[in-house]
Each structure stands twice: as structure tokens, then as C-alpha cells.
């Protein structure tokens, strides 16, 4: 855009230059026409050049006032606004970061609490399991002891019963032999025969 503007100004300038050069020449060539010509080209009028001098002074004063006082005031307001906005954004960003870290902490705490609770639950279950196991073992041991004792009692009762069975068998055999044969057989023969028969029967 700047390039096209520069080229267009060159084109306009090439047209304007002869005109600008011609204007003073025309004015000078026709001094009589000055009164009816453009007042802007009436350089005999001291006011025409006077406005240039005044214009220079006024422009300089305006430039100094603008550059030293008025424009810095505007800039100060714009800068302070930019800073205010930046500060506010910083504060907002800071607050957001704090909130984020608080949320993170909360999640962390929640995770930790969950892990602790899970560990406690696991421990309680494990304890209960161990206790149950121990109780079962104790119970089994006691039952085993009782069974053992009962078996011992049964065995002793059996052996006691078996011990008296021999005596009864001996007596019975003696009585049977006496009643059948009418003779008395010596006790040691009866005992030996019964013993033999019992052994043959696996008793």
C-alpha cells in the first residue's frame, strides 16, 4: 500500500510540478491581474507571508505542548490501563493456579484417605481371617484330642471286655464239656483249647 501510495504521489507530482512552476511565473508576468487573481498568490500583501511566520510559531508551540504535555498524558493513561489489566490478569492467573493446586491437594488427600481406608479394611479382614483360622485350628485340635481320648477309652473298654470274654469262654467251655461229657476237664487244657480256637478265629 505504501509502495502504491509512493508511486501515485510520483505520478501526481509529475503533473503538479509544471503547474507549480508555472503559477508564480504567470503571476509575475501579469502584475495587473493580481488584484483580480487569487488572494493566496498576492505575495505583495504582507499578511500572506505574515501568516507563514505566525503559522511557524503557532505550529512550534502546538508541537511542544502536544509532545511535552498533552500526548504523554494520554500515554500515561493508556500505559496505566495496560498495567492495570496486566496486573488483574496476573492476579486472576495466580488465583487460578492456587485453586488448581488446592484441587490437586484435595484429590491427593482423597486418594491417600482411600488408600488408608482400604488398608484398614484389608487389615481387619485379614485379622478376622486369621482369628477364624486360629479358632478352627484350636477347635480341630480339641476335637482331635477328645476323639483320641474317646478312642482310648473305647480301646480300654474293649480290651477290658475282651479280657473278661476269655474268662467267660473258659468257664462256658468247662461247663459245656462237663454237661455234655459229664467229666471235668482240667482248667489249663480248656484254657489252651479256647486260646487255640480264639487264635484260629482271629480274636
Amino acid at each position, binding site marked *: 500500500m505504501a509502495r502504491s501510495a509512493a508511486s501515485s504521489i510520483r505520478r501526481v507530482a509529475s503533473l503538479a510540478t509544471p503547474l507549480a512552476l508555472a503559477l508564480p511565473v504567470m503571476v509575475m508576468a501579469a502584475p495587473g491581474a493580481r488584484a483580480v487573481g487569487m*488572494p493566496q498568490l498576492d505575495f505583495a500583501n504582507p499578511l500572506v507571508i*505574515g*501568516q507563514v511566520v505566525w503559522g511557524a510559531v503557532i505550529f512550534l508551540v502546538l508541537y511542544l505542548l502536544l509532545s511535552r504535555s498533552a500526548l504523554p498524558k*494520554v500515554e500515561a493513561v493508556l500505559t496505566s490501563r495496560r498495567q492495570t489489566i496486566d496486573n488483574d490478569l496476573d492476579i486472576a492467573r495466580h488465583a487460578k493456579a492456587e485453586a488448581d493446586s488446592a484441587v490437586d491437594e484435595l484429590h491427593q488427600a482423597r486418594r491417600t484417605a482411600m488408600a488408608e481406608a482400604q488398608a484398614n479394611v484389608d487389615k481387619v479382614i485379614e485379622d478376622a481371617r486369621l482369628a477364624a483360622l486360629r479358632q478352627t485350628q484350636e477347635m480341630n485340635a480339641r476335637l482331635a484330642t477328645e476323639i483320641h481320648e474317646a478312642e482310648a477309652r473305647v480301646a480300654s473298654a474293649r480290651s477290658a471286655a475282651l479280657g473278661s470274654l476269655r474268662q467267660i469262654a473258659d468257664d462256658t467251655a468247662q461247663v459245656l464239656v462237663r454237661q455234655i461229657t459229664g467229666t471235668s476237664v482240667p482248667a489249663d487244657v480248656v484254657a489252651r483249647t479256647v486260646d487255640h480256637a480264639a487264635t484260629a478265629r482271629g480274636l
Partner: protein
Amino acid sequence: MAAGSTIDALGQFELHPVLGGLGEALRFSQSPLMMIVASVAVLAFLYIGMRPRAVVPGRLQAAAEICYDFIHNMAVDTIGPEGRAFFPFVFTLFFFILAGNYLGLLPFSFAFTSHVAVTVALALMVFVLSVIVSLKAQGAKFFAHFMPAGAPVALAPLLVPIEILSFLSRPVSLSIRLFANMVAGHVMLEMFAAFTIMLAGLGLIGDALAVGPVVINVALMALELLVGALQAYVFAILTCIYLREAVAH
């Protein structure tokens, strides 16, 4: 003013001393007076507009800030980072010309930008500034610009005078453009206003017909508002372009 059947369209550009004998002695005409009014208006606009110094600006402050940003962006975008140094100058130039153009549209006022002496002075100021900046920034390399890069050396006798002429015609075109635009606008306003007065002298039909030039003048006033802003903008942007070329290495 319309005097009889002739139209004096150029009389409005005549300079008259103000403040009587003192004005005559100081060469103080209505033109410098309007320059002062324009300067005071620009300064008042900024000072009063920026007085609230509000973070959230009101209308006038927003307008002042928009003006500041507009010229600041123009200067920095066109000239480059060095444009910050020239920003107050471009700002002064733009608003001095804009206020001058717009003040000239008020009744009983005077457009100092319609005087070629003023526009030439402004253009020469820009031209001299750009030459000084060029010499300061580029030194003797500045003169190398008069020979376009890549052009055959044999064409130098032709190209160099053309480039020099085109360079020297910058202040001429810059000043004539503003001057001619303002003069043309004010002459047209004066002509159509005179038509109204002349038609009004024709009796009842003339009274009815005289409405036409008034309507045209309303449209012309709108056009002049556009031209006034446009010419101030063109003057300022061309100043920025010249300064860009001056600071470019």
C-alpha cells in the same frame, strides 16, 4: 460574496488584519487567528478528554484515546520502530491540518489550509525534516537512492535527473494537493450559495428554484467533511512514508 450578477468566489480567501492597527503591525490576519483557534481546540480536546484519567473511559476520553492510537499506529506501522520518535510531529501535523480544514467549514470562519503559502510551509517543513533524517540515518548512502538499484549504468544520465526531480517535487505535490482541495471545496460552496441568492432575485419561481443549490451545498458540506479528513490523512501518511524512506537502511 455575490455582487450583482458576478460571483466573487475568491474574495473569501482575502486576508484582513484582525485587532485593528495592532494586527496590521504584527501582520496578524484571520489566518493565524484560526491557527490559534485550531491549536486551542486540539489541546482542549486532549486536555478535557483525558482529565478523568479513567481506566474505563467515557465518550470524550475514548475519542481522545482513539485519536492518539490512530496516529500512533499510523506512525509506527508506516515508519517502523523509529516512528515513535516522529509520532508527536505527525500527530501535530494531522490535527493542525484537520482542525484547520474543519474550522474553515464554519460560517464566518477561515480555512488557513486554503493558502498555498501555509501548505508550502508545512510541506517544506516535512521535506526538510525528511532530508535531515535521511542524511543523519544513512549519511552519503542517501544519495545512492537517486540511482535505482539494478538499473543499467548507461541509463544513469537519464534516471538520476528524473529521480532527483521526483524527489524535489514531493513538497510541491504535497502542498498543492491540500491547497487545491481546500480552495476547490470553498469555491464550490461559495458558487452554489451565490446561485441561491441570484435565483432568489427572480421572484416566486426563483424562490422555489433557489432551494436546489442549498440542497447541493448540504451535500457539498458532507463532501467537504470527507475531503477535510482525507487531505489531513493523506498529508500525514505521506509524511510517514517519506520518514520511513528516510530511516530505512
